[in-house]
Structures are given as structure tokens and as C-alpha cells.
């Protein structure tokens, strides 16, 4: 059941990206180009999404489980640290270079764009590099260097 629901929600999310214009990298770049001919449309995408999300998360915040009885997996991290700042900066630079973030990348892949496929492969590689990097630093933390 979860699988079917997740599939349908993914479809809905993707359709939202298409309708909104988020899956058009040229439009994203026009939004990010404050000094050029600025297209503010995408600010309204966020406004629309948050208008619906805000009450939803208010409800979720008061519950222990989802409506279907699944555990509510809310993020617990609170700290504003270097990882958050550095990661968000790198992500923002990549977003500004191509006008593509992860959701639209997957939609572009599905629309059959070869450049969409290339972007998704590079993005997956970036994520895999992060995982490898993470595993190494965890192993280092778990096993202090000999002699210490």
C-alpha cells in the first residue's frame, strides 16, 4: 500500500513541478537572474506549496503517527552548523549554474531529455561521493588513530 501511495504522490509532485514551471531550467534561471529581466513566477510556487504545507505540518506536529498509523518521521536536527551552510552553498551554486534541482532533474529525465539524464547521473555521483565521504569520516571517528 505504501508503495502505491508513494508512487501516486511522486506523480502528483512531478505534475506540480511541470505545471509550476519549476521543471523548466530556463525559467528557473530567469527567476534567479535578479539583475536581468526578472521573472518572479517561481516565488509563487513556493508560496502556493507552503500555503498548503503550513496547516498540514501543524496537524502533523500534534500527532504521533500518520493517518495510516505509520510513525511520523519528523527531522530532529536543530543545529545550524558548517555542514548546513557549506552544503546549502554548494547546492545553491549548482542550482544557479544549470537551473536544475533534484525534483525537476527527475522530471527532465522522464521527459526524455538527454541533458536531463546526464544531470541526474552527475547528481547521483555527487550523492554517492557524499555517502563515501561520510562513511570514511564515521569510520575514522569510531576507530581513533593508534597511539592516542
Amino acid at each position, binding site marked *: 500500500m505504501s508503495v502505491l501511495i508513494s*508512487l501516486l*504522490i*511522486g*506523480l*502528483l*509532485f512531478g*505534475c*506540480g*513541478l*511541470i*505545471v*509550476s*514551471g519549476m521543471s523548466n*531550467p530556463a525559467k528557473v534561471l*530567469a527567476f534567479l537572474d*535578479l539583475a536581468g*529581466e*526578472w521573472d*518572479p513566477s*517561481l516565488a509563487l*510556487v*513556493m508560496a*502556493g*506549496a*507552503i*500555503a*498548503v*504545507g503550513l496547516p*498540514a*505540518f501543524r496537524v502533523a506536529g500534534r500527532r504521533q503517527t500518520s493517518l495510516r498509523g505509520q510513525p511520523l518521521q519528523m*527531522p530532529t*536536527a536543530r543545529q*545550524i552548523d558548517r555542514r*548546513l551552510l*557549506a*552544503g546549502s*552553498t554548494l*547546492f*545553491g551554486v549548482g*542550482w*544557479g*549554474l*544549470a*537551473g536544475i534541482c*533534484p525534483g*525537476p*532533474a527527475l522530471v527532465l*529525465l*522522464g*521527459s526524455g531529455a538527454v*541533458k*536531463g539524464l*546526464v*544531470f541526474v547521473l*552527475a*547528481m*547521483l555521483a555527487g*550523492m*554517492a*561521493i557524499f555517502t563515501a565521504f561520510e562513511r570514511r569520516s564515521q569510520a575514522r571517528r569510531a576507530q581513533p588513530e593508534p597511539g592516542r
Partner: protein
Amino acid sequence: MITIDWLHFTPASAFAGGLLIGLAVTSLILLEGRIAGISGIVGGLLQPLRQGDVAWRVAFVLGLVAAPLLYRTLLILPPGRIEAGWGTLVFAGLLVGFGSRLGSGCTSGHGVCGLSRLSPRSLVATVVFMTAGFATVFAARHLFA
């Protein structure tokens, strides 16, 4: 001074699409108890896999990939124009993948879900990646163009 490109300004479809995204985010948290952060959902597949944690992620990703196919059968798919060259595209993809995982989220996880949760951490992340995006486009289009 900011000049607005009124010709390409599409407030109604942008807002309507935003509502659909909000509805998807709402459904995932209220039905499945999960945050609809795309980088987290995809990135979770590249980590040591836990049982029962794979199928829903794959299904969600397939839904996103299939969205344009479904859309195309009912309506005309709006164009998605990728202006970046191949080298830029690969570099940008690496940064987006690595950065969104290091920063624990992207436009959906921090920008939509995090702001909807009124999370200060996500607000900071969103301000930082938006600023980095604005600065990058400014540099690419107006400083080094």
C-alpha cells in the same frame, strides 16, 4: 533596480503548481509520515539500505520520472529548456548532489517542507542556497558573460 519580465511572468500556473506540490508534501507526511525532500529520498537509496525503507523511495522516484509521461497523455507538456553546456551540466549535477546531501536538503526538503514546519534551520538553509543561486547567476550572466 529590478526590472520585471512581465511577458514571461506566469503567476497563476506557478501558484497552481505550487498548490499541487503542497498537496503532495501534505499527503506524504499525513499518510506515510515522511518528509517529501527529494534529495533525501533519492540519497537514501545510495546509503546502506535498510529493510522496508527501499520500496517507497523507488516508487516515489518512479512517480516523479513518470509524471511527464502521464502529463503528456492528457495535456501538452511545456518545454523544459536546458541552456547549460555539457561540462557545466556535469559540474552542476555533482554540486547539487553533494551539496544537498551535505546540507541535509534541497528546494523541497528545506524550501517547502522545512519552511512549512517553521524550522529555523531550514530557513537558514533556504536563504543560503537562494543567495548562492542568485550570486551564481549574477556572476555567470553579468560578471563573466
